[in-house]
């Protein structure tokens, strides 16, 4: 089974974000980057499916040169090879236009299964996978907590709201968006890190893919959220207990 994992590189969760001089994005210079967490779970799921059913795990990533570090990390964890769509300016795309680029590259691989995280930690639009599925003409399911493959078909456990779940069957090829926590993430071994250096990373550009990807929306400004509530910042535990006792009357 050939499994394609679409992953994104995002700023680390603890990053202190500063708005850049254009006012349309953050200053990227000093940030550290990592694999978007739900995508890391998608990768792990792909690796486990390969261990069970055999086949190949191919990583697909669009991003600037720095995304190469996340691609190497995925290869070190066990992915077989990777496709890096080198694009320095992801901000020039909206979800649909970027998904067109990803879907074009994915289609050429003819994967049996495409996995990606349910959303990204940076933009959080939560739809790249679904849009790719539509563009590739394959069925999909989202927010997946369990994947079973039997005889060319797929049975998944979808998470619904408020603690509900649902099993859904569909034929392969298909695309799934994976929920964080579906499995236990592995660490790359030293051997894996060494091997990753020799694995194939094919670099492509959007122009080479030949996709027209004009956006139909633009992110025009970013800014700190307005505080709707006045938070009383207290200095220490004693003061907080005072407040909880005499203002909130809870203790």
């Amino acid at each position, binding site marked *: 089974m050939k499994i394609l994992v679409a992953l994104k590189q995002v700023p680390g*969760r*603890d990053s*202190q*974000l500063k*708005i850049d001089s254009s006012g349309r994005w*953050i200053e990227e210079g000093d940030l550290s980057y990592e694999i978007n967490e739900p995508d890391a779970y998608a990768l792990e799921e792909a690796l486990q499916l390969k261990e069970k059913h055999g086949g190949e795990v191919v990583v697909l990533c669009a991003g600037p040169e720095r995304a190469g570090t996340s691609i190497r990390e995925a290869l070190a964890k066990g992915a077989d090879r990777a496709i890096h769509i080198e694009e320095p300016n992801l901000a020039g795309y909206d979800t*649909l*236009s970027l998904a067109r680029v990803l879907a074009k590259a994915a289609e050429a691989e003819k994967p049996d299964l495409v996995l990606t995280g349910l959303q990204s*930690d940076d*933009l*959080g*639009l*939560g*739809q790249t996978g*679904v*849009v790719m599925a539509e563009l590739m003409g394959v*069925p999909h*399911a*989202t*927010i997946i907590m369990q994947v079973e493959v039997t005889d060319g078909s797929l049975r998944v456990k*979808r*998470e619904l*709201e*408020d*603690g*509900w779940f*649902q*099993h*859904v*069957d569909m*034929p392969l090829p298909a695309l799934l968006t994976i929920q964080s*926590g579906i499995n236990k993430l592995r660490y790359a071994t030293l051997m894996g890190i060494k091997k990753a250096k020799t694995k194939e990373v094919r670099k492509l550009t959007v122009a080479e893919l030949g996709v027209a990807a004009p*956006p*139909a*929306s*633009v*992110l*025009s*400004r*970013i*800014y*700190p*959220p*307005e*505080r709707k*509530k006045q*938070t*009383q*910042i*207290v*200095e220490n*535990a004693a003061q*907080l*207990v005072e*407040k*909880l*006792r005499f203002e*909130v009357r*809870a*203790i």
Partner: protein
Amino acid sequence: MSGILVVTEQSQGTWHRMSFETLAAGQQLGQALGQPVFAVVLGAGVGALGEELGRYSLARVHVVEHELLKAYTADGYTAALEQLIRKHEPSVVLFPHTYQSRDFAPKLATRLNQPLISDVTGCRVENGGLVLVRQLFQGKLNADYRPWGTVFASLQAGAYRAESLVAGSAPVEAETVALDAAQIRQKPDAPFRESARAVDLTSAEIIVSVGRGIKEKDNIPMVEQLAQALGAELAASRPICDNGWLPMERQVGSSGQTVSPKVYIAVGISGAIQHLVGMKGAKTIVAINKDPNAPIFEVADYGIVGDLFDVVPALTAEVKKVRG
């Protein structure tokens, strides 16, 4: 091309509460843009729900009934709504940002060659054009999006208030759609719950909730001691339960329990929206976090900016002093 189409959500004849928030948003946007507002309800046997929508101030209610829409599928909903949208050509299509919308709305927008702007927290009209506001980086920053062409947007829970929905009357019309069982590739089973919940957080007076900031499983007892000293229930954000550090039944948020205690103490929780929707109804919210820009402070009444490994033991000691 005119009009605002609000796609409502129901399951087995019961409304998703966010349908009404989305209708209220539609009404407000209709006023701002000077455009009529339409609502659609899809399913099988949903005539009564359509009649209910007819009691609001809307230009028309579309009822789309089909046996193949009885159980939700992304393929079925996309095919049905595609036909409705091509026929009526609205300029704006709004969805509640539910798990279900997340499953089909991006597909539907793609089918109609447009991007979906998802999880929107507010809209405004500037120079006749629509500006949609949404959060980035788990709520740390806001962003303005300017779309062109038909606008597809899903709205975050709580972004609009259902109470502001204006009553009135609207004609209710049945819409026929052509669906073929062969085009619906997903075969869903009935929804189920894992097991009865042994822990009911909803009746707790005080909840102490722990998030990623706790770093390791071995540090959980430190927070547990605070909960004990306060006579509180212990809860957690999703990553803690995903890691198996606390059982799933103690999870607060969109995929866990929704709580509204008297006091909610968030320890090392950054405050992603998926968590906030589960606890922002608390009467008093206390946040302990080392990042002064963490979104949890947006909803907190009291906050301590500091290292939870210093603050929590000190707090436990202070509470013990007071409660004896």
